[in-house]
C-alpha cells in the first residue's frame, strides 16, 4: 500500500518526529495537488450517463481535473459562458448532440454541456471504459484522479513533500531549514521524474 509506505518513509526520515495524523492529511493534500498540476500522473476514466434534456452532470467523485470529455465517442471542446451565449442565447435549453462543455459559473464539480442531449444514453451500469465497447450516447470523462495510493516511483517525492509541510508546521519539531531542504530535494527528484514524461 503506497500510502502506508509513504507514511512509514516520512516517519523514518523524520526519525519518528512526524505526527502521523498530520502526515496523513498532508499526504491527501499532496495527492490532490498532483491532480491539479500540469504534469499528469494519476489518471482515470469513467462514463457519465447522459439523460435526455438534462444539461448538467457531475464529474466522477475521484476526478480532480478533467483532461478529455467525449459525447458518444466524439471529443467535446471546453468553452466558456460568453462563447455559449454567442452560439445561442437559449443554450441551456437547446437540444442536440453535445459538442461543448463548460464549468464556468457552474456549481462545484459539475459540468454543463451544450447543446443539451436530445436522447438518453444506453445503460452504463458498472461498465468502465477500459477494454469494453462504449455504451452509446453517453459521456466519457478522462481525468486526473485523487486516489489513496500514488505510484511506487512517486513515493519518495510525495514523502518529501509531506515531510516539508510537516517541518513547516508549528509544532515541537518545527524546522524551517529542513522544510527548505525537503523542498529542494523535491525539486531535484521531481525534475528527474519529469524527464520521463
Amino acid at each position, binding site marked *: 500500500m503506497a500510502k502506508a509506505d509513504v507514511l*512509514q*518513509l516520512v516517519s*523514518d526520515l*523524520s*526519525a519518528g518526529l512526524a505526527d502521523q495524523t498530520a502526515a496523513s492529511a498532508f499526504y491527501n493534500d499532496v495527492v490532490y*495537488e498532483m491532480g491539479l*498540476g*500540469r*504534469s*499528469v*500522473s*494519476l*489518471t*482515470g*476514466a469513467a462514463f457519465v450517463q447522459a439523460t435526455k434534456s438534462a444539461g448538467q452532470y457531475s464529474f466522477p467523485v475521484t476526478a480532480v481535473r478533467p*483532461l*478529455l470529455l*467525449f459525447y*458518444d*465517442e*466524439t*471529443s467535446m471542446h471546453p468553452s466558456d459562458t460568453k462563447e455559449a451565449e454567442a452560439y445561442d442565447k437559449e443554450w441551456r435549453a437547446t437540444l442536440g448532440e453535445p459538442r461543448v462543455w463548460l464549468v464556468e459559473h457552474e456549481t462545484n464539480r459539475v459540468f454543463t454541456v451544450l447543446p443539451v442531449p436530445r436522447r438518453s444514453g444506453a445503460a452504463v451500469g458498472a461498465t468502465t*471504459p*477500459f*477494454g*469494453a*465497447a*462504449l455504451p452509446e450516447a453517453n459521456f*466519457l470523462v*478522462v481525468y*486526473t*484522479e485523487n486516489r489513496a495510493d500514488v*505510484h*511506487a*516511483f*512517486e*513515493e*519518495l*517525492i510525495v514523502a*518529501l*513533500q509531506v*515531510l516539508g509541510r510537516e517541518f513547516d508546521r508549528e509544532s515541537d519539531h518545527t*524546522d524551517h*531549514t*529542513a522544510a527548505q*531542504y*525537503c523542498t*529542494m*530535494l*523535491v*525539486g*531535484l*527528484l*521531481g*525534475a*528527474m*521524474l*519529469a*524527464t*520521463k514524461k
Partner: protein
Amino acid sequence: MLNRLIDQCQRVLNCNQRLVLKTVDFTTTARCVLYQSSLIAPDIARVEMVRHNVRNLFDVPWESLVHQDRLWLKARGQRADYFSRIGNDILVIAPALAMPITVQVVYTAVTPAPTGVPADVLIPDENVPMLRDMIEAVALLRSRKFAEAENPVTRIKSMLTSMGYESIEGTSGQG
C-alpha cells in the same frame, strides 16, 4: 532504513534513465482503444513503446490526439497505428480494430525492493554513483546535516543540468 532508501532512489533513477526495460505481450480488445496500464503489467512505470509484429506504433502525446482526429475514440482501422499515454495509468492503442491483436508493450519497470543482496540493485554500475548521491542526499535529511549534503546535491544538479535542465531550483515536485 537503508534498504528503503536504496529502493526509493533506485525507482526514481530508473524512471529517469529508463534502465530496467521489460517487454510483455498484450492482447487488445475488439473495438476498444483505452486500456489500464496496470492490467497490461503490474510493474509498469512508463510505457516506452508498443509494437505490432515488427512495426513500432507512433507515439502520440495525448494532448495531440484530438488534433489528429476529433473522432479518434471511435475511429476504426485495419491496423493499430499509434499509441498514447494519458498519465501513467491509461494507454491508448488506436485506431480500434474489429478483431483483437497481440501487441508487444515495452515498458520501464518499477524496480523490486532490495532485500540486502547486491544483486537486488538492478541499476547498471555506471549509474551507481548517481544512485549513491541520491541516497546520501536523502539520508542526510534524517540527520539534518545539510552542509554535508552540499556535495551530493551539487553532483545531482550537475547531472540534471547536463541533461538540459536550465533551472533546477525552480522545478516543482510534480510539475
